[in-house]
């Protein structure tokens, strides 16, 4: 071992060691990647190959690939695995103060949403690892979300028996579980292929509210006599008039994706105490060298 190397040996040492050059966000306990890509690894990718023979989208109940034996399943939607549903009803108010109702739309006629994998498939892994379980699919390709049928059999749906893979690799020596994700579940690069890129897209649209904690949205806010407030969207190119422009990536009054890709450093401003910081200016060095 070289003289400056530090080798975390036991499990607590491995969990808490912050290696030289790595920011705190590289520690698993700071990870946010569950329903969203995350900054350090995209845990959603471990679920893509849970079912032997098919590959799922990491954030949709959609079959993106399959072995030749199951080629016909590509483009279909998975609705349940064993007793565990992977879609649920989408319910909520449609306007302030209104009661909750099924939220259907032209793009989502059944008003359902995929239940993100880390919750919906965790029980499948716990209950059925190594077993073959009945999986309910649509019987044809389905580009839009589809709800579960009220009863089976139903010609619009097909049950296919698939095996549930183990998440962790096995020791070649003892056959016991290792603390390593099996390569059949996530190959090299799979866990990092879709990370957040916060200095680009996610300044605009981080939907997991992670950046919201550290980035201002509504700035230069002042109370008005009417009891409301005025202020700017952080992305407003001009701070006058002082009004909040509703977020819309096509609105030319706001910084666009292209603007951010080209010059995020120049477009975004420092905010101090909720207000735009004065422009930074180089000051003349003091004559006495202080």
């Amino acid at each position, binding site marked *: *071992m070289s003289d400056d190397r530090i080798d975390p040996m036991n499990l*607590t040492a491995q969990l808490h060691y912050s290696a030289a050059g790595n920011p705190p966000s590289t520690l698993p306990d700071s990870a946010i990647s569950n329903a969203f890509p995350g900054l350090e690894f995209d845990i959603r990718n471990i679920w893509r190959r849970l079912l032997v023979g098919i590959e799922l989208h990491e954030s949709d109940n959609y079959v993106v690939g399959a072995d030749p034996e199951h080629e016909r399943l590509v483009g279909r939607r998975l609705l349940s695995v064993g007793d565990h549903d992977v879609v649920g009803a989408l319910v909520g108010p449609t306007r302030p103060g209104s009661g909750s109702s099924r939220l259907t739309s032209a793009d989502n006629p059944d008003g359902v949403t995929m239940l993100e994998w880390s919750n919906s498939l965790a029980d499948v892994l716990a209950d059925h690892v190594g077993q073959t379980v009945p999986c309910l699919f649509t019987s044809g390709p389905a580009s839009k979300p589809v709800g579960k049928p009220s009863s089976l059999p139903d010609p619009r749906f097909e049950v296919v028996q698939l095996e549930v893979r183990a998440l962790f690799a096995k020791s070649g020596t003892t056959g016991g579980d290792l603390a390593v994700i099996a390569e059949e579940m996530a190959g090299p690069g799979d866990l990092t292929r879709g990370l957040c890129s916060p200095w680009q897209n996610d300044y605009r649209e981080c939907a997991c509210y992670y950046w919201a904690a550290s980035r201002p949205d509504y700035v230069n806010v002042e109370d008005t006599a009417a009891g409301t407030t005025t202020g700017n969207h952080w992305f407003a190119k001009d701070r006058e008039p002082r009004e909040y422009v509703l977020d819309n990536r096509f609105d030319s009054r706001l910084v666009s994706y292209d603007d951010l890709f080209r010059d995020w450093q120049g477009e975004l401003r420092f905010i101090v105490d909720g207000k735009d910081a004065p422009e930074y200016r180089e000051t003349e060095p003091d004559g006495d060298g202080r």
Partner: protein
Amino acid sequence: MTAARLFAESVPVHPDVHLLRTDAGPRVLIADGSRLFGVGQALYDRIDAARRDPDPRLVDSLLADLGLDAPRQVDDLAPDPPPVRALSLAVAQKCNLGCTYCYAQQGDFGGPAKNMPEATAFAAVDTLFRDAGPGERVNLAFLGGEPMINRPVVRSATEYAVAVSRRTGTPVTFSITTNGTLLTPEDGEFFEAHGFAVTVSLDGVGARHDLLRPHRDGRGSYRRVMDRVAPLLAAQRRMQVSARVTVTPLNLDLPRTLEEFTAAGFHGVGFSPMLSSPNGHGEMASRDLEVMLEQMTACGEEFVRRVLAGQRYPFTNLVTALREIHRGTHRPYPCGAGAGYLGVSADGDLAACHRFVGDSDGAMGDLTTGVDDAKRARWLTDRHVHRQEPCNGCWARYLCGGGCHHEVIRRGRPACDYIRGWLHHCLSVYSRLLAARPDYFTG
């Protein structure tokens, strides 16, 4: 490494770090979180200098510079009393042996000999299951005295617990600690059927055992115990039959004992020094503990030889220590006594553990009025290792937890050098095995 050398190498220098030179290279143990790192010699020397510096903050800043600092894992606050998930029933406060050092004073804890009535045992089972939530598991243990004196209640309480377990869906495991003299093949079948962890007290081979664990009339008990345990050893599948050896100055030949009991088929063999007996008999002095440490490390070397050869070797002390070191177990208490584990006397009084039966120091309520959570909270506050001396200055405090409450309250802490020396040895063995057989820890 000799015991004297282990004592010297493991002396506390700084409460937050400990350094080791192992066959696999220099090692740093960070006490909080029980985190073990391999380092180069230059870094070892820097940390060694910092831990000896009069300014204790130097270690903090160096660890932060190296990325070895971490959020505190153990603070000064005692946890709220957890749900009770394990009870041991003193089903018989009497014994047919006359072991001189017995904490239970030949089984009756210094009071009248008595059996636990079945109704009391059932009430204990109800208490055990009462607050268990879904997915939680409970453990029911039988101790004494000698629990097999009250065989009917061992059996009926077990069957009652199985019935409650089926009704509630809460899994239950069973254990029993026995002197082995009264066991029958039918007992073995019963324990096997219910997956008991059976611990048999055996203090050595042949005459050594007889000297320490005689019948009340002075006859030895070794042959009888081994004859009676044999059917259980042959039958164990779900059941696990282990030997527990209480080490006194009279039975210090541990490698031979371990070898003999391993050959006999025990699932595990564990050694524990006699540190506090009611009359001082059999207590280990520091010179005895030095001999014991030599013997324990000899057992450990044999363990390493066997593991490197791919064999199982049931030296429980080292198996457990290696598992805990690998996990980085860190705790402000030595065990679950007074927390999630309580003892129940034959009369239905609750105590911090099986050793505190009938002892006001560890009283925790009774089955009629329920577990006394105020007493448990006070216990957890008072017994927290941060409030123990000299534990506060010791690097081993989160691996050791401060030592057996019962022994500490009765006799103090006469075995700190031994415990530290043993842990130092275990950390060295861990480092060697992790390099040579990483599969031992991941299999």
